């Protein structure tokens, strides 16, 4: 074994406590990468097959892609945290030995030998950490799957534990790369240390070269111990920066995942309320409404036949989407607000709406209402615009063409607009028409050559109904190229949405927790090392008469000040990201109502308390281990 390897091994043995923490960090990082790879992949498989069963292969693949992207995002956050944590551990370890490296240099060690001393530490830890990490990864994945299924127990869908060898290999190689980078940077820095500064024993003095200013306010409030604590934090800014970053990442992830779960849950509740007694649905789509066998008249014939099924309440509507921007605009430029939804209902229902709006039966009516959910979970109706009666809207039909496999796709916008005059408006949704919420902002016309046909059904036997419905549809029409007919088990669809939300929140919850744990190892090793490195300083302070109480106060203040910094940065950032996630969810297309932002006060308080208690306890425990040392020995610097 070379000297560098031997020195590394000795160092690992000597500071075995710190070694264990570093190893724990590495094992956790490797484990998390292995776990997220396999968990994400099996999650993508399971979820996409659930979606594919209901919505078809293409939708399923979309979800698989979304979950994969999500996993990669988490993987990157884990990798970044791992680099911060692991490289900090090695930097502290190398920093402690500045003097040793100086001695080695003065007796003739080359730069490379010094660098290798640190590198070997990384190599030895990898040799143990990578296999252990792989095993830990399997355990973590198993626990994550277990927890996910626990959180998803409201649904029939379950995640399975499966191993993807390719992904596992990639995760392990990635971990190795992370460790290599994390070790190389401090190793290179250690090799640059000049022998002379070490010989002078100046390493400690050098750190103080940047003289921290007297923090007057803190000194006034907390006395001399406060001044010392603040100075210490400023002096070892670098060590504490990693601590602050890890704490911040943990806080942000916790707040973000809570926001995701809370707001998705609110949307889901609202959606369930809106669905009311609807238990099944059917949908027909034609890209070419002018030549299709199905038009609104034949659709009403089908509806009549459907109503013969026992205990089935069927409602029909048809719709088309139009561009408000006109044929000069490009398709991709269209946002939600640039598309008009034009709808036709069955005559009886249209009459009801016309009466509600106070206009003649054949009128065009706009549903001029916006839905919002208040903090108590009740819907509030708003009139978002001014009275639009009398307005003439020019809408441009979208044109479709057949792509690969005869799948229809929007291909363009017609040159000639359709002019729709608004005769009246509905500004309040009737209680028994909550489903109208889906059509807020839409135009209701008495007749339309529609592209989409929907049958919403409340039936006591939805599955039997859907079977019957399919045969009825086939008797009335033959599907032409590009046309699509699907039946939908609403209860199944809701269950799937619940499963999806539960899965996503379990995912973020579990892995955010793990990243927080990874950050915690860094906090522990940083604080412990900082206390250990200053044992001499403590001894000097106590030799000039600082009592145990004062020492304890100084350390407590240090932990409070460093926690405060993490909270000052982490909490606002976390709330901001929670708010951004809320905005994203609020804009989701399947949520035709706005929801209020839920400020997570309990979590904010819990985070603050958690950070304070964590740092405080670690500081106390490290300080307790110091008191065992003898003052004189420490001052003499016996190593």
């Amino acid at each position, binding site marked *: 074994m070379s000297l560098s390897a031997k020195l590394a091994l000795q160092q690992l043995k000597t500071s075995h406590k710190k070694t264990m923490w570093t190893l724990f960090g590495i094992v956790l990082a490797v484990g998390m990468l292995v776990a997220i790879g396999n968990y994400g992949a099996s999650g993508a498989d399971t979820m996409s097959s659930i979606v594919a069963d209901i919505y078809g292969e293409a939708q399923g693949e979309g979800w698989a892609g979304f979950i994969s992207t999500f996993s990669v995002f988490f993987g990157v956050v884990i990798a970044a945290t791992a680099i911060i944590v692991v490289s900090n551990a090695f930097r502290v370890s190398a920093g402690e030995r500045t003097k040793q490296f100086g*001695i080695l240099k003065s007796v003739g060690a080359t730069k490379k030998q010094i660098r290798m001393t640190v590198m070997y530490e990384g190599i030895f830890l990898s040799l143990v950490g990578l296999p252990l990490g792989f095993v830990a990864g399997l355990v973590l994945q198993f626990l994550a799957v277990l927890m996910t299924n626990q959180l998803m127990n409201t649904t029939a869908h379950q995640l399975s534990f499966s191993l993807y060898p390719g992904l596992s290999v990639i995760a392990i190689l990635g971990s190795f790369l992370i460790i290599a980078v994390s070790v190389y940077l401090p190793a290179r820095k250690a090799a640059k240390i000049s022998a002379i500064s070490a010989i002078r024993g100046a390493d400690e003095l050098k750190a103080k070269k940047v003289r921290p200013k007297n923090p007057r306010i803190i000194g006034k409030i907390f006395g001399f111990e406060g001044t010392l604590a603040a100075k210490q934090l400023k002096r070892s800014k670098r060590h504490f920066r990693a601590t602050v970053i890890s704490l911040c990442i943990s806080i942000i992830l916790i707040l973000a995942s809570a926001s995701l779960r809370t707001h998705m849950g609110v949307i889901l509740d609202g959606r369930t309320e809106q669905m009311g007694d609807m238990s099944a649905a059917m949908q027909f789509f034609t890209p070419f409404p002018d030549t299709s066998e199905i038009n609104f008249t034949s659709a009403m014939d089908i509806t009549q036949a459907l109503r013969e099924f026992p205990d089935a309440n069927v409602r029909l509507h048809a719709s088309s989407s139009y561009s408000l921007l006109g044929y000069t605009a490009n398709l991709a430029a269209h946002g939600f607000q640039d598309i008009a939804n034009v709808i036709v209902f069955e005559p009886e229902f249209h009459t009801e709406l016309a009466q509600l709006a106070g206009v003649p039966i054949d009128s065009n009516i706009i549903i001029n209402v916006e839905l919002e959910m208040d903090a108590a979970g009740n819907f509030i109706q708003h009139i978002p615009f001014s009275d639009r009666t009398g307005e003439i809207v020019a809408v441009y039909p979208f044109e479709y063409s057949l792509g690969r496999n005869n799948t229809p796709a929007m291909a363009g916008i017609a040159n000639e607009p359709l002019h729709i005059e608004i005769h009246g408006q509905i500004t309040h949704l009737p209680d028994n028409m909550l489903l109208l919420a889906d059509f807020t902002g839409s135009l209701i016309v008495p007749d339309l050559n529609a592209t989409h046909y929907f049958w919403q059904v409340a039936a006591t036997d939805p599955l039997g109904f859907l079977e019957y419905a399919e045969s009825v549809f086939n008797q009335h029409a033959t599907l032409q190229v590009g046309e699509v007919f699907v039946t939908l088990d609403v209860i199944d669809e809701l269950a799937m949405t619940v499963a999806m939300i539960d899965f996503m929140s379990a995912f973020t919850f579990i892995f955010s927790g793990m990243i927080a744990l990874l950050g915690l190892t860094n906090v522990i090793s940083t604080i412990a090392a900082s206390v250990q490195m200053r044992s001499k300083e403590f001894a000097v302070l106590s030799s000039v008469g600082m009592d145990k109480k004062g020492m304890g106060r100084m350390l407590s203040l240090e932990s409070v000040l460093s926690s405060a910094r993490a909270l000052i940065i982490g909490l606002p950032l976390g709330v901001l990201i929670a708010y951004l996630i809320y905005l994203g969810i609020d804009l989701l297309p399947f949520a035709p109502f706005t929801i209020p932002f839920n400020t997570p006060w309990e979590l904010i308080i819990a985070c603050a308390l958690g950070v304070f208690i964590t740092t405080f306890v670690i500081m106390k425990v490290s300080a307790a281990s110091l008191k065992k040392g003898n003052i004189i020995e420490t001052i003499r610097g016996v190593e």
Partner: protein
Amino acid sequence: MNILQVENLTKTYGKGEAQVNALDEVSFSVEKGSFVAVVGASGSGKSTLLHLLGGVDRPTSGKVHIDGQDIFTMNESKLAIFRRRNLGIVYQFYNLIPTLTAEENIMLPYLLDGRKPNGATVNELLELIGLTDRAKHLPSELSGGQQQRISIARALINSPSVILADEPTGNLDSKSGKDILELLIMANKRYNQTLIMITHDEKIALQSDRIITISDGQILLDEEVR
């Protein structure tokens, strides 16, 4: 024969008005096998001189030849290798590697070279410093005087051309200090090794062959004692 030759050695710190000449155009040479004491007040530049002679610091200008080699023309790696093969350095604060045993600390220059020294040589040195029974101890298990003896053995192991000692007794009680000094002088006489020692202690200086007094970065006096 001159084992060490110093030419116009200058070391300045800082720039402009804050510039300090720690060493100012110092030149001298040392004959092989002699014992030179370097004395001077603290801040006079004697430690800077020793660091430059040991190649752990680089001069602003000037040259140092050891055993005929111009050490500052070497790159850092070459200089490091030169140092472990040709120089022995003893510091005031022992400077041992805390994770290595006494024996391993002694062998350090060899271990850095990837070689294993002759076991007999190591045992002879351990016997010389009277620590044969402490070979497997860690530095923290040894007294200050014992640690310093280990560091002297480390400086002697590769039979260096020059031993540089920076107040090697400064941190020890008088009994241990006396032992250390005897050890260094014995090495100087027995192995004909050149010894250059910084000291504050006049009594120690008087045991040398030659005393160089440094003041304000320049040689104030250079006198043969015997």
